[in-house]
């Protein structure tokens, strides 16, 4: 485990604001347990909880906060200079940070969504959701990590993507769904455990290829941007 990994993990968990992430998974589990204990038909509560809350809100929001935090926080307070001046290749900085971001996101989202998936249908659905959301966590983290290097307002741009592209346009304009990580995750999960609970218009090969492409492409972009990174003050 490299030092960069260690520093990044400590930067994430060392502050009390990490506790801000906890309510999201807890609500997910709480709703699933509530519905299950009241005996509501899974076909009714499955889509709003698993997709509406789990894959459409918890996954992107956690990935956004963690993914822009691993490097963005250091850029914000200027301590990124300490890492940049070490004789490290840039990929040895980006990859550990990406690994921590994706790992933390995958665990934070995976545990509650596994519980919800098992309660909704079967262990198979739970495992499929965990695997798909882990792939989604990697893609989202790569995207948001690259965003925090491309722009000084990564969270707001990320929110534009999550809220307006995936949330608003994805609901009304079906064409944008092909380019939506959320839909790819749903497609992958549906392929691994076919249930009527998940449904999407994106085909599985397209989803798999695009997920890999986004994960690799934005990682390469992040490494490239970090090569010629200039440290500046806070935006006005």
């Amino acid at each position: 485990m490299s030092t960069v990994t260690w520093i990044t993990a400590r930067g994430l968990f060392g502050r009390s604001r990490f506790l801000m992430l906890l309510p999201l998974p807890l609500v997910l589990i709480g709703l699933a347990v509530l519905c299950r204990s009241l005996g509501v038909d899974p076909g009714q509560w499955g889509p709003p909880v698993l997709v509406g809350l789990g894959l459409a809100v918890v996954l992107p929001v956690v990935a956004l906060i963690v993914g822009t935090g691993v490097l963005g926080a250091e850029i914000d307070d200027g301590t990124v200079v300490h890492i940049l001046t070490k004789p490290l290749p840039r990929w040895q900085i980006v990859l550990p940070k990406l690994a921590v971001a994706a790992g933390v996101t995958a665990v934070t989202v995976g545990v509650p969504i596994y519980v919800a998936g098992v309660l909704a249908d079967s262990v198979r659905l739970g495992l499929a959701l965990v695997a798909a959301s882990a792939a989604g966590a990697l893609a989202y983290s790569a995207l948001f990590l690259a965003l925090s290097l491309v722009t000084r307002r990564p969270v707001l741009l990320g929110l534009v993507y999550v809220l307006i592209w995936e949330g608003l346009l994805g609901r009304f304009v079906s064409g944008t769904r092909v380019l939506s990580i959320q839909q790819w995750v749903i497609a992958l999960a549906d392929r691994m455990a076919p249930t009527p609970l998940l449904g999407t218009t994106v085909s599985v090969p397209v989803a798999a290829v695009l997920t890999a492409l986004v994960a690799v492409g934005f990682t390469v972009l992040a490494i490239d941007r970090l090569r010629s990174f200039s440290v500046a003050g806070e935006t006005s």
Partner: protein
Amino acid sequence: MSDATGVIHDIGYQRYTGPRLGRRQVFGALYLHGVRTVFGLGRSAKAKIFPWLVVSVVTVVAAGVTAVRSQIGEVVMTYAQFADAMSWLVIFFAAVAAPELVSRDLRSGVLPLYFSRPLPRGDYALSKLLALVTALWLLLGGPQLVMFLGAAFTTNRGVRGVWDELLDLLPGLLYAGLWAVVFASIALLVASLTGKRAFAAGGIVAVFLMTTPVVGVLSILPSQTINQLAFVASPPTLVGGVGNWALGDRLTQGRGGMPIGDFGPVYAVAAVLLVAGCVALLLLRYRKVAAR
């Protein structure tokens, strides 16, 4: 002991003897500065991107709705429904604006400078809150005015038609005010908890998005009472419920409102309690921050 040789020279500094503006002017200045901050006026071009992006999108939508109505004569959405349809953009706008208003001051540690003036703790928080309310209301009310102007100029019933249109607009503006108050108080409370704008923006969006699916789940539980009370759980639907009860037919214009049953007053009480609770916590927060 030598004699004192030092002399204090009078180098001409003068005391300020003019009128001193009081608390109201401080409040007014802070409020005006807050409204300008939200829209990025008097700041760099980068600060204007996100607010004006949202403003332009809602205006374009309003213009489109107006155009459809004047050409085809079909009412796509009423004034109040416009606020509902724009809810995601309002959330985004609040997530942009609230951290700009309070998180920057927390982060750069300028609060002691503010509070060394004759400015009570509560006034600072309330002026920021009022600024955010105003900005959100303008965001929702401005496009409604565009829709009204479009409808007023294309009406074929003369002054009578304009008057009817105005009677439709006023509840819409009132409803937009309700949206603004509820959203601003929640967003500002969340933003005042952290000095990092990034975390504040994420937190605000998380609060609003997280509660929406809760409504979806509560409204399918096997109990009619819970179903009718489900919309309390999320701020946007809570506002919708209050509007449904208070404005009734004016809001929906016979297009099926929310199934809230007889619980309208409960929604109103819940909204008042929510806003009051958020404002109280905000004032409490600034009492603590100021003491540091």
